[in-house]
């Protein structure tokens, strides 16, 4: 059940040094849940339904965002912070002036279903890009990658022929750096957040024929849930992409549905692990339907076919009991 959203706002010091010539207003503050800072929360400012400013919270939950000054007498903005696993309503800010130099607003988020972690979430660690890639391009790449990967998973899962509801899988940026070579660290990170999977990657700018430079990438998808002896091996994919521009969609495109399939299978493993034998027949039938729908999209040589068949077998045995 979704808890009623509780948002506590603290309007801080406003006013001071208002300048009618200012082109931008500034809002800052912190986003937290039960006094724990929420990093990587998306924060947007709306005016009359349009987004006029947005940012992402830092590791300590703080944010700072600029937005255009008020053009008319209707001096109202709505501030919304969102993060998977948390509920949020908009918070209104009324101004008496066209723009104050700096407003502050702290936002308290409620958890959904009482989950304070990130249920059904795949985390993507920032790709480390070595070589001559511009810092701004790298930052954009990392900021956009999780959204693109999410849409690949959504596109894939919406293609599954299901009577039951699609699994709700979200993708978000990991809130701490992860090392590609540290499998134990990656698993610990995933377990601590009850994640479906963790994607870690790095890239290097390499010279190819002539003066052309390309981005050589290694991406590793680690599935976190393990049910009895059922587990999915790490998916390691090497790739080369054009350097300019660096487009996150190229990674997602080149990986095709591999990540998405792995994400859905991780979801099934998570469900089996969570229930630990207390599932209802209907829950098992839904998982079975999901696996059959995933298999229906697989090519003959899919690497995930074997673990998937094992999962179907386990569920069939439970259903036949």
């Amino acid at each position: 059940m979704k808890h009623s959203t509780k948002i506590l706002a603290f309007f801080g010091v406003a006013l001071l040094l208002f300048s009618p010539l200012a082109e931008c207003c500034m809002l800052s503050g912190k986003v937290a849940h039960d006094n724990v800072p929420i990093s990587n929360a998306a924060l947007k400012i709306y005016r009359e339904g349009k987004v006029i400013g947005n940012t992402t919270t830092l590791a300590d939950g703080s944010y700072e965002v600029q937005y255009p000054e008020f053009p008319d007498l209707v001096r109202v903005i709505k501030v919304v912070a969102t993060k998977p696993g948390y509920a949020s309503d908009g918070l209104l800010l009324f101004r008496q002036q066209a723009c104050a130099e700096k407003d502050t607003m702290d936002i308290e988020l409620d958890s959904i279903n009482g989950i304070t972690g990130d249920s059904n979430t795949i985390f993507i660690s920032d790709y480390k890009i070595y070589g001559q890639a511009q810092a701004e391009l790298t930052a954009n790449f990392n900021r956009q990658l999780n959204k693109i990967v999410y849409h690949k998973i959504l596109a894939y899962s919406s293609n599954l022929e299901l009577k039951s509801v699609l699994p709700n899988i979200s993708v978000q940026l990991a809130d701490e750096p992860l090392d590609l070579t540290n499998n134990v660290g990656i698993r610990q990170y995933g377990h601590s957040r009850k994640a479906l999977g963790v994607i870690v990657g790095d890239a290097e700018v390499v010279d190819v024929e002539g003066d052309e430079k390309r981005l050589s990438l290694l991406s590793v998808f680690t599935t976190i849930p393990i049910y009895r002896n059922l587990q999915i091996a790490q998916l390691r994919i090497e790739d080369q992409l054009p350097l300019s521009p660096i487009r996150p969609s190229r990674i997602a495109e080149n990986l095709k549905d591999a990540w998405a399939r792995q994400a859905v299978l991780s979801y099934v493993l998570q469900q089996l692990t969570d229930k630990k034998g207390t599932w209802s027949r209907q829950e098992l039938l839904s998982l079975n339907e999901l696996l059959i729908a995933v298999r229906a999209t697989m090519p003959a040589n899919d690497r995930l076919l074997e673990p998937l068949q094992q999962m179907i077998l386990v569920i069939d045995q439970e259903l036949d009991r």
Partner: protein
Amino acid sequence: MSMARSSILGVTLFLCASSIANAGEALPCFARGEFGSCPGPVLEHVAFKSVVLQYVDPEGTELGESLARLLQREILESISDLPNAGVILAFDRAGEIESALGKQDINVFLQNQYHVAAMSIAEQQNAQMSIWGTVLPDGGGLYIQTFLTLRQPEDDQWMTLTLSLPRSQEKLTASLGRSSVNLPAVQGTNAELFGKRFYTRCARKTGCPEGIEFHSGPSQDTQVIGYLPAGQPIEAVELHGRWFRVVLPERFKPIASSEGDAWINLYYLDMLAQDVWYSGLKNVNLRSRPGGEVIGKADLNGHFQVLNAARHGKWRQPWYQIEVDGSKAWVSGSLINRRSYVFPEVHLIAGLYRYGLGQFDRAAREFEVFLKTLPGDDHVTRATTLKFLAISRLASGDLEGRRAISLLSTAAKLTPYDPSVYTLRALANIGNEKDLVGTTNDIRRALMLNRRDQGAIRLLEGLISAAAGANTVNNSYLKNVTFSRELENLNNEYVQRR
């Protein structure tokens, strides 16, 4: 025996309503508190419809509405000759999508609320297709993901293939088995995607006595800097909101000075093709102008770049100027086999319209073209399209059965664990080849993959009933002891065991 797409409305629908031309409508469907609810049904007498929802735009590219409008216009163009077809645009000018999105995570919103809204609007409008998507920034470019969900109204089982057995009440059916199609993402920079040649058009009921207006900025509130008559080619540079920044032709006479940029609302641009393809046409009339005198004849095959385009005649059909053997000539747009679109999925959608309205040959042509535009390793969408193509061939009847079975076999190679492809092939086998062994093998495969597969079970039960009742010369081949025993075995092994 005959194969047909199932429709209770059937022939009556096609004949009675054929005078209604294809149509587009736009509705605000995201009012506050009634998200996904439109003011009322439109195009009620149009038999086959789709709704195109404004694209979700979580990162503020400001292209959400214009992408949906462009797609709607391209779909309308692709079915311009098809009576009884319509496209409804569900848009949001009040920022309600953003507002609804603002309360929650984009992932949850897209997966649940927007998909539900898409289906709800399709339900309200009694539309067979719902098209929705999202647009995201992608390293300086754009990433546009579109989703297509098919809906089968109770009175029009258009996605079900039916085999009518002669002199029998028994009807065997197989469904396409897929109601969602994952369309390939469209990617590129704004200029790559929208820097194309368009043509001015007047779409106002009151006409455009002054011509089509150009503005100094991407807004109706900016200064009008001049006019051009309808039908003029315009080179677009980029799309910003609902406005194209364009390069004005030399003949443009400004009435006001501007900073150099000229903008036109996409509403006033016609989406004629940039490239066209012909398929082995002999002795095509080449004309001096659209509908003008014949200046020569030529065989046309393959790709041609469009030099100029125009509309002509009572139905405003497109004409294209191309270069043939070093000379420019106009050729009727009705002769093209394929044309370019911003959204390649328009071919698939156009094929579904034509299939749904009984134009099976034309549907097959659109599906074939869409297959050519698909990335080679998009095997799921390829297999789905092959199934659409196969049932179009089957529904068109006669000599296409074997070819359809071959297409289904290719689909089975691409997605060998999809039960529905075997159920469809089983029906095609029994209908066209009277292949009893192939039919039972395919039903067995489908049930092995999913012993609860409703399509395979329904076909199996239908066949058991048909085999038991077979008593005429035309269906006596079903009265085969081995076949009946195989069907019973399958029934005992999979259906009764449940």
